[in-house]
């Protein structure tokens, strides 16, 4: 919130003092050794790929076809659709769960705590099986999109409720006291003073959580929803090319999540939230 851009600090700066000359020499030696090890590991992997024939043209030439990329792009669009929808539902539901949990109404607060903990502790795969295998038995028809999106959203909502609650707890008590002392109602105080500040505090965590949502969507194959992972599996079967396809989509997932992380850093800077990374 200050005018000057916050100095970029890493966890290292926050935890350790500036190194002296002897430490710096040791750091240099360790850096050199690690570099050699990394290069050696990469070379070993490349070599294994080579002797097992992974560089053979038949594993890679289909990436030159437009249809391959069109198909992957459709999968990418599916992933984005599910991730954004699930993310939006999880945000809204997480906020509601948190508001319920901090309420003075004991019954409501207890229910919201149980629901939060329930979704937070369940693996999303289990929730997906529930929507895929159990829900249809009760005659509820759902598209594969919702069979994937709802469980991913529910699983994330529990985590987000806790993220929001951490944000609310981080708002200084004096802010509430000041609002109350001006004659504002507790409800207005929550919505005009506490929540805007709480959300600002946790925006970086909220966006990081979107990374988890994106990764959760990869279990789409359970319900045969055509996301990036599912379409990749189709390519693998078509071209009998396991490693090259997984390698390629791994890079795409890394790029997506890198972009999300960059977005969270950008947003935090815009809001003047100091984060340590």
């Amino acid at each position: 919130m200050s005018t000057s851009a916050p100095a970029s600090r890493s966890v290292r700066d926050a935890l350790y003092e500036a190194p002296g000359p002897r430490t710096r020499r040791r750091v240099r030696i360790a850096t050199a050794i690690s570099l050699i090890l990394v290069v050696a590991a990469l070379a070993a992997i490349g070599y294994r790929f080579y002797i097992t024939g992974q560089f053979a043209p038949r594993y890679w030439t289909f990436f030159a076809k437009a249809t391959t990329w069109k198909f992957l792009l459709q999968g990418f669009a599916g992933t984005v659709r599910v991730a954004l929808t699930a993310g939006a539902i999880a945000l809204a539901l997480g906020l509601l769960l948190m508001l319920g949990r901090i309420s003075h109404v004991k019954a409501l607060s207890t229910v919201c705590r149980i629901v939060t903990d329930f979704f937070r502790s369940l693996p999303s795969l289990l929730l997906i099986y529930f929507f895929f295998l159990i829900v249809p038995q009760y005659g509820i028809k759902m598209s594969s999109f919702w069979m994937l999106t709802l469980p991913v959203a529910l699983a994330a909502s529990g985590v987000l409720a806790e993220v929001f609650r951490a944000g609310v707890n981080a708002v200084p008590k004096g802010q509430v006291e000041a609002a109350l002392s001006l004659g504002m109602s507790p409800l207005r105080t929550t919505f005009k003073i506490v929540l805007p500040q709480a959300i600002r505090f946790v925006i970086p965590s909220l966006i990081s959580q979107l990374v988890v949502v994106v990764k959760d969507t990869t279990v789409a194959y359970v319900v045969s929803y055509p996301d990036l992972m599912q379409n990749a599996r189709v390519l693998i079967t078509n071209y009998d090319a396991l490693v090259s396809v997984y390698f390629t989509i791994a890079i795409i997932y890394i790029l997506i999540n890198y972009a999300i992380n960059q977005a969270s850093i950008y947003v935090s800077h815009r809001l003047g939230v100091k984060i340590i990374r």
Partner: protein
Amino acid sequence: MTDATTQQPLIELKHVDKHFGSLHVLRDINLSIVPGEVVVVIGPSGSGKSTLCRAINRLETIDSGEILIDGKPLPQEGRELAAMRAELGMVFQQFNLFSHMTVLENVMLAPTDVLGLSREEARGRAMSLLERVGVAEQAEKVPAQISGGQQQRVAIARALAMHPRAMLFDEPTSALDPEMINEVLEVMIGLARQGMTMVVVTHEMNFARRVADRVVFMADGAIVEEGAPDAFFDHPQTQRARDFLDSIKNH
């Protein structure tokens, strides 16, 4: 500067007691403040003076006794409590400006939200108050961009924007750098001169001597001594008060 015997008290505490667990923080507090009176509460830290100040608008609850505002019991909750709080301005040690709003929005919020003023009216009121406390040029900044002294003056303007009947100050200068204390005290002195009813918890003895109609000395949760400032500072009646005054002198 009113005659305390003839008027109905604006704020009255009767036999107020409060415990924090086993700690007896307020012991049988009896205090009444008439309109226009400036009461300065002093005492060592942990004496319960902040708790007393905060109890008056129910930021602290009490265990027993009565707090009356204008002869009526302090409401316990809901709309009535909010309405009562709106009539009592409060200034905190840590300023507590809303950190996500500009200075101007801080001062405009409650008049629009609680009193239902239009934005134009609220803006006019806010700007003239910011002018009065000398921070009008900072109106568009957020609290983190201005100094502690400026923040506290904004906090005073924010409380005044509700046109309160009395102002409660809970150690308003204790968190300030020394060079900023006076700018805040000047604003408070101005308020006192204009006849505002004030309860001020402070360590600023010169302020107490200059501005107070009455000094209340607290120790261990009880009011040990009270009186006119000159009488209290020059001839304290109790050993406890003498010890306290000695401990803060000689520097």
